[in-house]
């Protein structure tokens, strides 16, 4: 079926973005450009929510959009939605979806978060879940304002244990693509998710531990070799789960070194700001799934311990910026 059949005026879907920060803001603003889509957003930052309701959600950078989004800090004020897009940081998934479960009583909920394990948490609260992986990134500039830093594709597919229907997944992909976020509906989205997971897990924490940009990490033989070791473990776990990767994570790493030499990984930015990292769903996810299939992941375990230790140290120091 195509989008053509579904076009033709009137409201075709209501979507709620759960966690309307940088990535959530990109999805919210793009979807809100469609006349047949009504966009709601749940976020815990009252200042951000008030700014969105007062003056709209403004996107700057790679896309200039001023979007009408109905933002709320109280999910009880949000009407039932056919689709949810969860874009919180992974450590807030459980709390956020528990709060919002009532919004999706008859909806399908898609995670576009980092790492693995988010869909499992979402599935504890809603009946139909979509596995998603997205590359576009941005950052919150000010309340109500999000900068889009990078573009790229999004891949979505059924979450195997509690799947959304192929029709629903196709409809969401069509809407996102029409809204300006190219999205591919897949029968199996695990390959895309694990490719990005392995890429992130092999590079992000090394940035945080060494203070080096992505380009420098790839330039130094020592860290490039360590990245290769981390990738190798991740690929072995993916293989043990029967997942076929989209592309070779090592090649993605080298490609990123060319196009994003000066990029400081999000985990390095988290470390500098003393914000809790997503290590548990990145390297921690690889270790957890590796344990399920009996695949050894000693290097990823070491990285988890180091980042967890680093976070432990922040507890006894003055809190950093951020939330």
């Amino acid at each position, binding site marked *: 079926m195509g989008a053509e059949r579904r076009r033709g005026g009137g409201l075709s879907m209501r979507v709620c973005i759960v966690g309307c920060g940088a990535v959530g803001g990109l999805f919210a603003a793009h979807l809100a450009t469609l006349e047949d889509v009504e966009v709601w957003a749940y976020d815990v930052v009252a200042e951000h929510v008030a700014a969105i309701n007062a003056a709209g959600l403004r996107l700057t950078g790679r896309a200039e959009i001023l979007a009408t989004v109905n933002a709320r800090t109280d999910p009880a004020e949000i009407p039932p939605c056919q689709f949810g897009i969860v874009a919180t940081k992974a450590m807030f998934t459980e709390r956020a979806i528990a709060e919002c479960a009532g919004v999706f009583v008859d909806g399908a909920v898609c995670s576009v978060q980092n790492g693995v394990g988010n869909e499992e948490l979402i599935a504890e609260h809603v009946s139909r879940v979509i596995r998603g992986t997205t590359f576009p990134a941005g950052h919150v500039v000010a309340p109500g304002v999000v900068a889009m830093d990078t573009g790229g594709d999004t891949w979505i597919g059924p979450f195997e244990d509690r799947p959304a229907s192929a029709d629903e997944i196709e409809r969401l992909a069509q809407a996102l693509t029409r809204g300006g976020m190219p999205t591919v509906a897949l029968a199996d989205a695990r390959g895309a998710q694990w490719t990005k997971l392995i890429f992130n897990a092999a590079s992000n924490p*090394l940035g945080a*531990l*060494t*203070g*080096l940009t992505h380009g*420098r*990490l790839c*330039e*130094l*033989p*020592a*860290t490039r*070799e*360590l990245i290769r*070791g981390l990738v190798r473990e991740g690929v072995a776990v993916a293989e043990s789960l029967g997942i076929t990767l989209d592309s070779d994570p090592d090649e993605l790493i080298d490609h990123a070194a060319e196009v994003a030499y000066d990029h400081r990984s999000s985990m390095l930015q988290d470390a500098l700001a003393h914000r809790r990292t997503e290590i548990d769903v990145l390297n*921690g996810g690889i*270790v957890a799934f590796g344990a399920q299939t009996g695949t050894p992941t*000693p*290097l990823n*375990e*070491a990285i*988890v*311990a*180091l980042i*967890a*230790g*680093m976070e*432990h*140290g922040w507890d*006894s120091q003055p809190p950093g910026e951020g939330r």
Partner: protein
Amino acid sequence: MAISRICVIGAGTIGSLYAGHLASVCEVSVLTRRSEHAAMLREHGLAISGKHERHVELFATAEPAELPRFDVGIIACKALDLELTASRLAGQAAGAAMMTVQNGLGAETVLARHGAWPIISAVTFMSGIRHSDVHVEYELDTETWMGPWAGTATPYELVAELAALMISAGLQAEAMADLLPAQWSKLIFNSAINTVAALTGLPHVGLFAQEREFGDLGLLVHGLIDEGVAVAAAAGVSLHEDPWEMNVLAVARGETAHSDYAHRPSMLEDVVAQRPTEVEFITGALVREAARVGVEVPLSTAMYRLVRAREASWAPSVAGAVV
């Protein structure tokens, strides 16, 4: 041979602790790197606080040729400064014995290239906090272990006499016929504790011995120590103490159990101050020794690479040397 004159070469924290104690039982001279430091010591003497309260007068100079005759030289500079320090001593102090207390492996070999002094190998667990050029706080009043270096015909009796002199000065010391087992125990302990502290930013706290659940730092520390123990075994060295027990004991002590009072390993101090670390002499030495005896040490290699990369983040010139 009666030891009555000692020269402390390098008056950092450890050197000052030796000088400040030994000056109460024998004649002590000090060779500093900076002439201002020597002038301050000549003018104000040297004060020790903390575990012991001392204030001693002593001769100090930055010129090796100005040193009075001495029986034993204690070389207490950092491993990184040893080559330069040893070259300044070349042609001096004929008839004296020299003791090395540098971290890691190989200090004796470096020193022996610059003179024919009988060499005493030593490792020390003392630690202190340097408050000024003339005031050092004695933090951990732990032992110095020493033994004749196999590369020179150093009589054991001389080592025993030096140990006795240190004990009479209030220090903890033990003479051993063969120091290798102790040197390796400390190397393995140091390699694990220093690299983990440097990368996480944590002082040596209880978490280093905690291995209750996945991600606990103690699991990584234990893994690193197990690798070191395997290398020692393959190299034919039977350890003096179990490095894991050393770790458990160290964090159980009052000085380190609470993070406010926890010992800050020197590699952590170096990283915080963005100085070159001793990782090359400690973990680097262990990794090279592992390669020599054919033992795989993936975790130690990862830690070595991460610390070198961390150094590269503030000293781009180091990059070229990274393996």
